């Protein structure tokens, strides 16, 4: 497998509690992986270690062969800003910024001039079904719309990997499905990999592969077929979604 992100023998302890007890995981280019498990299983810790948010106590994390776990905080911060994208459950958008500026923020942080950054941010609104919402503020968006803005923000820097932590946790089922579909499509359309932490099997079904975590160990790695780009989506028989063109693809 052409791995983009690899974790080997990851160990993480919080005091006496062992969150990760030697976990290994590789994510291929354009692959969508769901990390599942009950509360306290260590799935969020695994995501934090893979994303360079936390340093594992032992083991290695590599992005395209480069060690991430040995980097200093400043370097990891820059890496998260440029090579990774993040979608959280909620609360990630700055309430005082219009949607387009929320999306443009990572670009501006990377030094892209404001006008250019906003222009590039706007390109994401149409494909994500957010046309006309550019100048609305997060308080004026529904939960699903806000998550789509977050997806745009995660992808606008064209990251190698997008990490999503319970991205549909605050949404109703139908909105959650729509959001997951867009997340998977848009990530794949950008040739980015996706790592989703969830406890919801419905969410996991959108991914190529599900990894079960229990007590800090991986139980199984089920590979699901038929989820190649352009394939049918569970519960949504049609393939209309792939007709969308995402900015990453058009370039």
């Amino acid at each position, binding site marked *: 497998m052409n791995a983009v992100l690899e974790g080997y023998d990851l160990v993480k302890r919080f005091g006496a509690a062992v969150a990760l007890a030697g976990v290994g995981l590789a994510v291929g280019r354009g692959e969508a992986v769901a990390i599942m498990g009950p509360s306290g299983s260590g799935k969020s810790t695994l995501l*934090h270690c893979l994303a360079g948010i936390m340093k594992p106590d032992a083991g290695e994390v590599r992005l395209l062969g480069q060690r991430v776990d040995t980097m200093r905080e400043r370097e990891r911060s*820059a890496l998260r*800003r440029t090579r990774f994208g993040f979608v959280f459950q909620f609360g*990630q958008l*700055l*309430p005082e*910024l219009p949607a387009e500026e929320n999306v443009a*923020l990572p670009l501006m942080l990377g030094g892209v001039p*404001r006008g250019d950054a906003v222009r590039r941010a706007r390109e994401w609104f149409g494909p994500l079904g957010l046309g006309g919402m550019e100048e609305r503020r997060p*308080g004026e968006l529904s939960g699903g719309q806000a998550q789509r803005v977050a997806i745009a923000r995660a992808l606008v820097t064209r990251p190698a990997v997008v990490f999503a932590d319970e991205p549909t946790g605050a949404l109703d089922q139908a909105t959650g499905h729509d959001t997951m579909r867009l997340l998977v499509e848009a990530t794949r359309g950008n040739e980015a990999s996706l790592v989703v932490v969830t406890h919801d099997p419905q969410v996991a079904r959108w991914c190529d592969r599900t990894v079960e975590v229990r007590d800090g160990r991986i139980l199984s790695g089920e590979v699901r077929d038929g989820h190649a780009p352009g394939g049918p989506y569970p519960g949504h028989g049609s393939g209309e979604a792939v007709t969308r063109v995402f900015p990453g693809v058009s370039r």
Partner: protein
Amino acid sequence: MSGLLGLSWRLLRGGGRSGLLGAGLTAAAVAVSAALLLFAVSANLAFQGRADREAWRNPVEARTGAVAVEAVRRDYVRDRPITVVDLAALEPGASPPPGLDRFPAPGEVWFSPALAELARELPDGQLADRFPGKTGGVIGDEGLVHPGELLVVRGQEPDSPVMAATATDDPRGGAAPTKISDFTGKATSDAEGYQALALIATVLMVVPLLVFGGAAARLTVARRDQRLAALRLVGATPGQVVAMTVAEAVITAFGGALAGTVLYGLLIPVLTRIEIAGGSWFASDMWPGVPYTLAVLAAVPLLVGLSAVVGLRRVVVSPLGVAKRETPPAMRFVRVLALLAALAAVPALGAGTAAGVVAVVLGLAFLAINLTGPWVVGMIGRITARTARGPARLLAGRRLVDDPKAAWRTVSGVALTGFVAGFIGFLSPAGGLFGDADATTLRLSVPAARAPQLTAEARERLSAAGVPARVEVTGGGGRRVLTVAVGKAAGDEAGDGKAAGKDKDEEKAAREGASASGRSVEGSASAAAVDRARTALDGLVPGRGATTAADEEVFSVLLLGDIGTGTVVVLTVSFLVAIVSAGITAASSVLDRRQTYALLRLAGTPLEVLDRARRAETLIPLAVMGGGSIAVGVFCAVPFAFSSVNVSGMVILLVCVVLGFAGVTGAGAASAPLLRSVTADPAPRPD
């Protein structure tokens, strides 16, 4: 109720690190407020105490039952006033005045500690010789206005010429012999004036303090919103929710008030050193006493609780009390019109305008700035956001537009202090207005009939004391003025104007001392020589001392100095409040937005960007509004300014500007570690 109180206490303790931090911030804010409130109360009591302790030297004539005669006059040594009290008992066993343990016997002299020390330090011919007689004792604190006061009480026979002296024209000069039945007396008009000024200063300090304390209370409530809404959802009644929140706020505030009392106690030694009316304070002056302390300890938590109730209304009304985040409508321009209207009235004012009118216009301008603040902040925000090129500026600008009132709250304290500083700074009289009066020509009012005889005697006494001086009689009518130009050439005195040899060294030292204290010393006459002359002339006219023009100005000079001191004290308190409130607001804004900040940091936003945004968010409005307030203050002062730009005023202004910026920057920077720590949480959740 005790169950509710118990639950509140558990919620307060169990609020986790950030909850405790929030409570700690509120407690700290309340502590500062309580300490400053105690100071404000004590200051008034202290002036009251001075007035009371001075009252016995402002005798009230007894129609019947007189037991003693009291005469009071001012004498001077160097540039300091001495209060000379002459007492004669009319009946045996008259009760003694405050500070003396018995009524002084005729011929006895009682000194205040400071005067006794000064009399020992200076040569006898300059001071001690004025008060011959057996030392009766030392005057205790209860008879002194301030610890450094120069006071002498002399026992006299009732038929002594001193007890028959006539009154001087200046009420500050003392009181003519007055028959009294006891030493109650009444407060002097000066003391009453100081009490009035203290009251104004108190208002200037207390109003921002109350606003600040209230804001601190609402701050606690704001963070409790969500949790209390949750309590409402599980079925707590509005009454229970209010009771719990108020209990929590009151518990926190009480802790803060206690800490503030301790803090104030620790500050007393520093505060007693503030010199007003020529002296510092007794430690007991600055201690408000148990009843007032208890009143502050009770009132502060009560006020905080009240603010909490007001802040809670929203949550109680709706269990889903979380505000919807939308672009708020822009502030109304009417706010600016209010300021313009208030300012339009200013040019109509002048030195002749009634004080009440001036106070009202100033108050309106003060309020109008406060009204205009959010509007201007919103406008600056829009400009900043529109012109921002980098993320930090953009974040700052958007935040200013989002909640201009909150941004204004952060800087309003400093900006309003800017108004006060601008007004006072421009208005404060130049140092040279007083203090350059003639300090070398002594004047003594004498009866016309005895003028020639007294002139001759004066010359004789001065020559015996070795003080060269020209003695003349001026004026007309029943009383003439004997003028003694110390050190001046005079036809019949040691001619060339040089001081006698034995005075030379002494004189040189004194001249240096005098010029250092800002008093001019003309020719070869020195402060020492003037004091020798004063001592030599003492008793020439019973009950009167010779004074210079500079002596008569001493009280004006003191008053001006005191206005300066008062300004510095009020500005210091304002700045303390402003900076602490800026710090609290900065910290609470970090706490309130910790989830968003933490998620931004997880997504790789450098902390420096967040810090820079937070800094811009306060400093940009501070620069605009602080500058604007100073300008408005100066504008309001223009109609009253008697001199052009004055240096000391500008120095005050400049110091204020530097302190304001440094303080607010520092207060904001103080919350940077907090930002670091709250954003270190990898799984941030809202409260």
